[in-house]
């Protein structure tokens, strides 16, 4: 399989006074298209910095980052925004949905900045919400949805513009174990549909659902292993459960 992500000797140095902090210290790796990867590490290991660079939210101090066939480590802020808009979908620990805004409109958000027409936005957002099993809750506000449902709205938002890469930062950190399974099942499903999924987590339980685990420590990759993923079993495909 062709590599979607290839990084070479990535470093990220933060200067604090006269001290240098190497958040990334020569990271090289490849992630193939459609792979489901978990990046693990303790807090301060550099996994968040790696995720920010992979997500085009941050630029490395040195090294190269190829996303698809494009070298993007030196792109401008606006060019990075374009890449985030068209290639990457984000899922956050605390959902980051817009308050008092319907599921439909939350899911539409990336399309607004991608310049899609209103009609196009509505249709795509509806399809994405149906895909995460919330087709009947388009008009619900985040406050009317359970945590798991809110995270599914966020996943719908991440996939609405057909990204090639989903980056999930502790996506189950705010969820209970039952909804964790639901959300991870959804992630696996997306992986099987050909989207590359990268989950950043410090929980081995969550990493168990991935086909590959990369462990980061002190800004370096210390372990990179493939595994048979645990199948996330849920009673039903995540059709909308009642809000808790």
């Amino acid at each position, binding site marked *: 399989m062709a590599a979607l992500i290839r990084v070479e000797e990535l470093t990220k140095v933060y200067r604090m006074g006269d001290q240098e902090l190497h958040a990334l210290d020569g990271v090289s790796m490849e992630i193939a298209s459609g792979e489901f990867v978990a990046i693990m590490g303790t807090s301060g290991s550099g996994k968040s910095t790696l995720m920010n660079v992979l997500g085009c939210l941050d630029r490395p101090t040195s090294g190269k980052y190829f996303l698809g066939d494009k070298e993007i480590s030196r792109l401008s802020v*606006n060019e990075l925004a374009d890449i985030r*808009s068209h290639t990457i979908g984000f899922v956050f620990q605390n959902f*980051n949905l817009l*308050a008092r805004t319907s599921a439909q409109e939350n899911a539409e958000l990336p399309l607004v900045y991608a310049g899609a027409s209103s009609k196009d936005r509505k249709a795509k957002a509806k399809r994405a919400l149906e895909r995460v099993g919330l087709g009947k809750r388009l008009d619900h506000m985040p406050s009317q949805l359970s945590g798991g449902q809110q995270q599914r709205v966020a996943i719908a938002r991440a996939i609405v513009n057909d990204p090639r890469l989903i980056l999930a930062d502790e996506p189950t950190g705010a969820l209970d174990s039952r909804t964790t399974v639901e959300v991870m099942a959804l992630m696996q499903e997306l992986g099987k549909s050909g989207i590359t999924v990268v989950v950043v987590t410090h929980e081995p339980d969550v990493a168990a659902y991935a086909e590959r685990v990369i462990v980061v420590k002190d800004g370096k990759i210390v372990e990179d292993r493939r595994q048979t993923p645990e199948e996330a079993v849920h009673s039903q495909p995540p059709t909308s459960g009642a809000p808790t």
Partner: protein
Amino acid sequence: MSPFATLRIALRALLRNKMRSFLTMLGIIIGVGAVIAMVAIGEGAKAQVEASFAAMGTNLLIVLPGASSGGGASGGFGSQPTLTWDDLKAIQNECPAVRVASPALRSNAQIVSEEQNWSTGITGTTPEYFDVRSWPMAKGVSITAADNDGGAKVVVLGQTVVGKLWGPNADPIGQTVRIKNIPFEVIGVAASKGQSPTGQDYDDVAFIPVNTYLAKIQGGLKKYLSGTIFVGANSAGDVGRAELEVQALLRERHHLQPGDDDDFSVRNLAEIAGAQQAGTQTLTTLLASVAAVSLLVGGIGIMNIMLVSVTERTREIGTRMAVGAKPRQILAQFLVEALVLSVFGGLVGVALGMLASQRLAAQFGWPTLIRPDVTIIAVVFSAIVGVGFGLYPARKASRLDPIQALRFE
């Protein structure tokens, strides 16, 4: 991203906090409303002054006889007759800037109709007087040169006198009234002129030919003209020149040496009107400035709320950036929010200001004067205030680091 989409996002954000948006707008509403109402008040006062001076007559000079002084006490202008009938003729004939000059001799007398009587000022004058004072007839005809030459016993009445003798809408033409027991035929009713700048009723008058006045009211022709001379200049631009000409002529005729005080007074109404107008203009400017300050304060209110909003919505900004919003799109969103607050507030302020102006105008009996230019300036100014004070918070929002913003608690 289309401007329409940006506007929609901004409107959504504002509607999410309706009370806050309204209170922020209130600053602009009051500011713009105050500017419009204050300027309307100033303009109304100005129009009032202008109207009362216009009623005096246009291009008008009034020549008053000089002051008497006896035993060190000065009697004031008009107390001593120093103007002569020859002075009048000389002004008429020898001053190129003077179009027409007319005497006005005045005394109080009782006018008696068949049923009523009324005491008013009887003015003896010439036909030119009505021309100098731009005073048309409402009914009937004016005094003619023939009336004057023949000493005709005819009278032109003011509207107030007609009202007192016969009732407000009566037609007294052809009626006979008695003044000092002499019968006069009413030949005309002068159009209503309203009030003088000092509140005197212009319409409480009766005019008779000056020769009739001299023969019947004052008694006999005298050398001195015991009244005032109304002088009409050729044009508005000639008023100043006419004033100097009349002054020089009278000084020469009265044999005044250089250094002597004038024994007469020439009043230039345009000058007095100008001074009055400058006064009301100052008032308008002052009122508008105070109102503009309140508009500025409204703008600061917008900045304050936008700053709070940016801080409060840091996570939202981070999320928008993460899903692909560019800094300038974030900038546009917050700028448009500020702009919507200020422009909408401005428009509501215009409506409120107009309402207030109308109420105030009705209260003071002024014409309602909403100046369109001021209205447009107020709205444009409020938009500028919105952009000006919205720019800093919007820039702050657009420069947020998405990573920091997403982590913001």
